[in-house]
C-alpha cells in the first residue's frame, strides 16, 4: 500500500483536465455516428472461404481476418489507441448474430426515434448484395426464429426472451491475468493444453491460439501506423507521442506491460478485441482500481510518472470507452435507450481481509469522471460499512456533478446474495458490475444476466381476467378465473402462483434453447482465453467453460405489483369498500368513466415507497416466490437461474404490454422506473421513507442486480454540509442492506419537464423556507422562480 494516501488525495483533488483531453473529447463527440459494415464484409468473406470448418474455427478465423484487415486509425494526439472501426462511435453489424433486423431497419436507422445512426448510401448496396444473401437463414437470429420463434412471440407480453440476435456480453473478463500474461503468455498456456488435449478439444485450443496470434498482429499494426505517422510529422511533441505509442503497441504484442501507460493500453486492446469478436453489450473492466494499482505505484515510486500524467492517461481511456457504441434494433433501443455499452468499472469496496480497498486510483477514477462527464465508463462505487469517509464524500461530490455517476453498490448485501447462488466467499467478495447494474464475479463467470425480463404486472393482469389479455382479448395465460371468482385474497394469490409457474416454465425452456444455440452458433474462443475455467476444461465459454455459469431473469415491476395487490387486498377483501366486479369492470374498460375510482386508488390507497410495511411486504413476498421458483431450475450450462430487479428503460415498452392495472395505472402507460423504485409521483414521504420501503424487498433475492433511481436537486451538493449529509445517507443505505442506488441530480431542464408533465414528477421536492414542498404543488410563478434560482446554482 502507498503510505500517504491523504497526500495523494489532496494532490488528486487539485488536478485539472489537460487541453489535449478537452480536444480529444470534442472530437469524440463531434463526429457523426455511422453504420459500419467493414468488419461484416470481412467476416462474410472469411465464412465463404471456410464453409467446411467447425463453427468455432470459423469464428476464430473471422476474428483473425478482421484483426488483420480492418482499417485502423490513430489520432496524432491520442495517448491510448485502438478502435474496432476507423470512425469514432460507429454502429457495427454482426452478421453471424443477427442480420434480418438490419435488413428491415436499414432505411430507418437514421430517423428512428431512439439511437439514430447514419447510413452511407453505398453501404446499403454492400449490405444487400455482399452480406445479406450469404447469411439469410444462417444467423443466430434467423435460426432462433426458425426453431422457437413462435414460442418467443407467444409469451413475449409476459416473458420477453433476450439474447436472440447478438452475442453474449455482460462479462467481466480476467483483465488482471491478461495484463500479467499478454496474448503471448496466454497463447503459451493454450499451447501446453493443446499438446495434451484429445482431438475434440484440440479444435478449441487451436481456435484460441489463432485469435491470440491475431491479437498480436493487431497490436503490431497499430505500432506500425503510429511509427509511420511519427515519421511523417514535423511537430516534435506529436512525434514523441506517436513514437511512445508505437513502442508500447509493439511491446504489448510480445510482452506483458510493465508501466501504467502500457497497462492501460493493454487493457484497452483487450476490450477492443472482445468487442470485435462479439459485437455484444458490455465487457466490463470491473475492479480496475485494484488490479491497475501496482502499475501506478511502480511508476510513481520510480518517478517515471506523475499524478497529473496518470490522470491524463485515465481520462484518455475514459474517452476511448465512449468511442465504441452498441447498435441495437429499434425495439431493443427502446428497452435500452441511449446505446449503453456498459464498460462498467467498480471502484472502492473491500479487500479479501475486509479492509477498505479504496486507493489513489479510486480517487483518480472519480476525478476523471468529474472531468469527462460522459456516459462511459459506467462508473460504479462499492461501499461497505468500513468505507473511508473521504471516499464516500468524494463519491457524493461527484454524484452532485449530475452525470448520475458513480452509481452505488453495497457490499453488505451483495456479497451474501451472491454466496446464496453458490459463489465462493472470495469470489463474492471480489464481485464486479457488468452492463448497467448486473452483478458478477471477476474473470470467471458467464453470467448471462439478461436472459429474459418477466412482467409480473402482466401476469397479475391475466390472473384477474381469466388468462385473457386486457389489451387484445386473446387468451394468453391459464384460465384461472376472474377477480370476481376469487372468494378470498388467498384464492387470488393461489391463482397468481399458477399463472407465474406457467410462464416461468415456458420462459426457462425457451431460455435454455437460446443458451444452447449460442454455443452452437457463437462460440467465442478469444473471450474463452480470459475467462477462468475455459482453458482448464477445454470448453468454450458459451458451452459452459467458465467456473460460474449463471442466468439472470428480471422480475418486473415490484412497485406496480405491490400497489395493485395493495388496492385489491385493502378495498375488496379487507375493507370491502369496493366490489370486485366494479374494479374488474374498471380495469376492462381502462377506467373509462371511472376516474373518481382511479383517482381515489392513486391518492388514497397506501403505496410502495412510503414506508408502509404491509404494502412493501406484498412486494417482497412475490419477489421471494419468483426467486425461489427460479432456483428450482438449472440452466443449459449447469448453473443456477437467479433474479434481477431492474429494467433500465424497459419500464416504458413493458408498460405498453400491460392493460389498466389496479394501482390506477392506465393501459399502455409506463411501469415504475428502475426496478426497486416506487411508481413515479407516488412516493410522497421523501427519500428516507422510500429507502425504508426498498429495504423491505430482501436484497438476498436480487443477486442478478437491482436498480433504484433517486432524484436530487443540484442545490443539495453546493455546500460542504450538504455533501456530508448526502454521504451519511449513502452510509445509511449501506446499513439498510440496499444493494444499489443511482442518483439523478436534477437541473433546470428537468424542472422544466416537471412543469410540463407534473404527474411524472410528483415526488420532486424543493426547499421553500423552513420546510420542504413538492415542486408541482407550487404555483407556476413560484416554480419559475425556483427554476431561475437553480440556474444560478449551476455547479459545473
Amino acid at each position, binding site marked *: 500500500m502507498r503510505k500517504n494516501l491523504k497526500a495523494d488525495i489532496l494532490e488528486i483533488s487539485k488536478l485539472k483536465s489537460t487541453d489535449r483531453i478537452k480536444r480529444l473529447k470534442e472530437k469524440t463527440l463531434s463526429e457523426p455516428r455511422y453504420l459500419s459494415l467493414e468488419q461484416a464484409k470481412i467476416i462474410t468473406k472469411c465464412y465463404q472461404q471456410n464453409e467446411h470448418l467447425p463453427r468455432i474455427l470459423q469464428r476464430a478465423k473471422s476474428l483473425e481476418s478482421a484483426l488483420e484487415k480492418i482499417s485502423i486509425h490513430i489520432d496524432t494526439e491520442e495517448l491510448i489507441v485502438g478502435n474496432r472501426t476507423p470512425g469514432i462511435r460507429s454502429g457495427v453489424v454482426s452478421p453471424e448474430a443477427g442480420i434480418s433486423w438490419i435488413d428491415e431497419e436499414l432505411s430507418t436507422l437514421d430517423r428512428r426515434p431512439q439511437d439514430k445512426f447514419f447510413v452511407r448510401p453505398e453501404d446499403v448496396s454492400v449490405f444487400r448484395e455482399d452480406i445479406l444473401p450469404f447469411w439469410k437463414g444462417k444467423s443466430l437470429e434467423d435460426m432462433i426464429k426458425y426453431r422457437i420463434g413462435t414460442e418467443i412471440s407467444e409469451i413475449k407480453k409476459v416473458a420477453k426472451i433476450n439474447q436472440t440476435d447478438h452475442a453474449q456480453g455482460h462479462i467481466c473478463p480476467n483483465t488482471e491475468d491478461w495484463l500479467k500474461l499478454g496474448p503471448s503468455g496466454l497463447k503459451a498456456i493454450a499451447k501446453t493444453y493443446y499438446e495434451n488435449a484429445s482431438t475434440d478439444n484440440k479444435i478449441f485450443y487451436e481456435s484460441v491460439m489463432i485469435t491470440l496470434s491475431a491479437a498480436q498482429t493487431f497490436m503490431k499494426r497499430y505500432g506500425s501506423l503510429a511509427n509511420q505517422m511519427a515519421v511523417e510529422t514535423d511537430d516534435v511533441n506529436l512525434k514523441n507521442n506517436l513514437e511512445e505509442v508505437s513502442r508500447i503497441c509493439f511491446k504489448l504484442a510480445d510482452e506483458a506491460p510493465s508501466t501504467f501507460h502500457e497497462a492501460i493500453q493493454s487493457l484497452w486492446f483487450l476490450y477492443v478485441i472482445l468487442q470485435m469478436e462479439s459485437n455484444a453489450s458490455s465487457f466490463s473492466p470491473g475492479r480496475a482500481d485494484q488490479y491497475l494499482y501496482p502499475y501506478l505505484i511502480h511508476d510513481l515510486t520510480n518517478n517515471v510518472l506523475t499524478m497529473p500524467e496518470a490522470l491524463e492517461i485515465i481520462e484518455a481511456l475514459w474517452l476511448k470507452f465512449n468511442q465504441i457504441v452498441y447498435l441495437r434494433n429499434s425495439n431493443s433501443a427502446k428497452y435500452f435507450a441511449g446505446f449503453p455499452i456498459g464498460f462498467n468499472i467498480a471502484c472502492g469496496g473491500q479487500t479479501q481481509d475486509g479492509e477498505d480497498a479504496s486507493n489513489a486510483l479510486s480517487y483518480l477514477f472519480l476525478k476523471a469522471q468529474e472531468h469527462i462527464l460522459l456516459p462511459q465508463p459506467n462508473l460504479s462505487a462499492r461501499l461497505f460499512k468500513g468505507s473511508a469517509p473521504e471516499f464516500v464524500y468524494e463519491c457524493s461530490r461527484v454524484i452532485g456533478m449530475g452525470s448520475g455517476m458513480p452509481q452505488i453498490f453495497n457490499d453488505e448485501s451483495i456479497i451474501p446474495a451472491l454466496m446464496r447462488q453458490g459463489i465462493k466467499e472470495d469470489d463474492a467478495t471480489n464481485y464486479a458490475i457488468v452492463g448497467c447494474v448486473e452483478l458478477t464475479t471477476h474473470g470467471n463467470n458467464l453470467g448471462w444476466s439478461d436472459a429474459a425480463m418477466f412482467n409480473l404486472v402482466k401476469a397479475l393482469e391475466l390472473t384477474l381476467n381469466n388468462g385473457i389479455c386486457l389489451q387484445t382479448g386473446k387468451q394468453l395465460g391459464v384460465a384461472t378465473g376472474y377477480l370476481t371468482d376469487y372468494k378470498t385474497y388467498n384464492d387470488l394469490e393461489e391463482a397468481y402462483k399458477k399463472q407465474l409457474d406457467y410462464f416461468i416454465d415456458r420462459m426457462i425452456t425457451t431460455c435454455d434453447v437460446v443458451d444452447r444455440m449460442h454455443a452452437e452458433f457463437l462460440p467465442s474462443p478469444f473471450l474463452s482465453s480470459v475467462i477462468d475455467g475455459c482453458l482448464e476444461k477445454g470448453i468454450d465459454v458459451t458451452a459452459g467453460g467458465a467456473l460460474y455459469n449463471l442466468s439472470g431473469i428480471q422480475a418486473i415491476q415490484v412497485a406496480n405489483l405491490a400497489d395493485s395487490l395493495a388496492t385489491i387486498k385493502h378495498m375488496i377483501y379487507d375493507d370491502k369498500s369496493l366490489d370486485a366486479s366494479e374494479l374488474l369492470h374498471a380495469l376492462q374498460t381502462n377506467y373509462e368513466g371511472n376516474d373518481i375510482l382511479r*383517482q*381515489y386508488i392513486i391518492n388514497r390507497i397506501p403505496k410502495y415507497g412510503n414506508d408502509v410495511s404491509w404494502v412493501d411486504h406484498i412486494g417482497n413476498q412475490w419477489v421471494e416466490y419468483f426467486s425461489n421458483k427460479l432456483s428450482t431450475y438449472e440452466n443449459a450450462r449447469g448453473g443456477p437461474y437467479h433474479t434481477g430487479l431492474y429494467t433500465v428503460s424497459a419500464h416504458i415498452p413493458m408498460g405498453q404490454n400491460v392493460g389498466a392495472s389496479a394501482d390506477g395505472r392506465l393501459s399502455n402507460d409506463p411501469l415504475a422506473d428502475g426496478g426497486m423504485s416506487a411508481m413515479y409521483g407516488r412516493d410522497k414521504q421523501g427519500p*428516507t*421513507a422510500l429507502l425504508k420501503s426498498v429495504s423491505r424487498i430482501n436484497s438476498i433475492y436480487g443477486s442478478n442486480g437491482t436498480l433504484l433511481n433517486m432524484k436530487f436537486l443540484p442545490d443539495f451538493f453546493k455546500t460542504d454540509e450538504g455533501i456530508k*449529509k448526502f454521504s451519511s*445517507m449513502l452510509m*445509511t443505505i449501506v446499513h439498510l442492506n440496499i444493494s444499489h442506488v443511482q442518483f439523478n441530480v436534477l437541473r433546470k431542464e428537468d424542472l422544466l419537464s416537471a412543469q410540463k408533465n407534473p404527474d411524472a414528477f410528483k415526488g420532486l421536492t424543493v426547499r*421553500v423556507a423552513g*420546510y420542504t414542498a413538492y415542486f408541482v404543488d*407550487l404555483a407556476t410563478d413560484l416554480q419559475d422562480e425556483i427554476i431561475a434560482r437553480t440556474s444560478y446554482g449551476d455547479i459545473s
Partner: protein
Amino acid sequence: MIGTIFDIKKFAVHDGPGIRSTVFLKGCHLNCIWCHNPEGISPKVNLWYFENKCIKCHKCIGSCQNNALSIQEKPLSHIKIDTEKCSNAGTCVAICPTGALCFDGRTVSTQEVFEILMADQVFYEQSKGGITLSGGDPFYQSDFALDILKSCKNNAIHTAIETCLYVHSDVLEHFIPFVDLFIVDMKLYDTYEHQRYTGVRNESIKFNLHYLADRKVNLLVRIPLIPGITAKDENIKNIAAFVHSIRDDIKIELINYNVLAESKYRIMNKSYSLLHNMQSFTQSELNHFNQIIKNEGVHVLEEIHLD
C-alpha cells in the same frame, strides 16, 4: 398525551446537525407578518382546498351534513368553504379522491409522533442527526412538546427545538434536560419594532436567551432576513452585540429571505402583508450582514459553499 401538529418532515437537513425529522406543532404566540408557515399560527385545525388537485367530482358537496361546501364561479376558487358552517367533521376529506380537500393539521398522540420519528432512526444514527420540534412555536403546546422530547431523549435520539422563546422561563427550565440544541429565532432587537411586526414585545425573549445561556445549554441564534424589516444593519448589529454580551460562544446563522412564503397565504385566502416581488439577498449582501456579526465578535454559522 395528545397534541396538534401540521406536519412531520422526514429528511430535514436544515434544522440542526445530520439528517433529521422535524415535527411542526400548531399554534404560535407571535404573528409575524412574514411568517412562512402561516398555518402554524392558529392552534386550530382548518379545512384547506387545493384547486389544482380537484377533479370537480363534487362528491364533497353532498357529503357535508352542514352544507358548508358549494360551487362558485371563476375567478373564485371552484369549491367554496363556508368556515362558519364547517364543523371539521371531515366527511369531505374522507371522500375526496385526490386529497384536494384536506386539513391543515391533525391531532395526534405522543406515541404516534414518536413512532413516526423512530421510523428514521437508522438515518439519525448514521448521520449523527435526530429530531427537531418546530412550528408554529413548540412552546405553544409546551406539555405536548416536552412529552415528545422526553420519549426521544429516553431513546438516545438527539433533540433540537426551534423557537422564538416567547415562553415563561419556568416552563423553559423543564425543557433543558431534554433538548440538545436550542435554535432561537431573534427577529428584531428593538422592542417597539418587535411588537409592531410580530405582535408581541421581546423582553421575555431576551431574558430567556440570557437564562438559557447561563444554564450552559447548546444554543444557535437565527435571524430571518426580511427586507426592510429585520435585514437592517443596525438590527443585525444590535442582535449580534446582545448575543455576544450574554455568551461569546453562541453562533448566529442568517436565514435568507425566501420569496416562496407567499404561496401558502393564497391557499389560506389570507393576504400577505409584505410587498410582492421582494428578492432574496445576494451572496455579497449576505457577506455584508455576516461581517456586521463578526465585527461584534460573534461567530457566524455559514455553510461552506463549494466552488
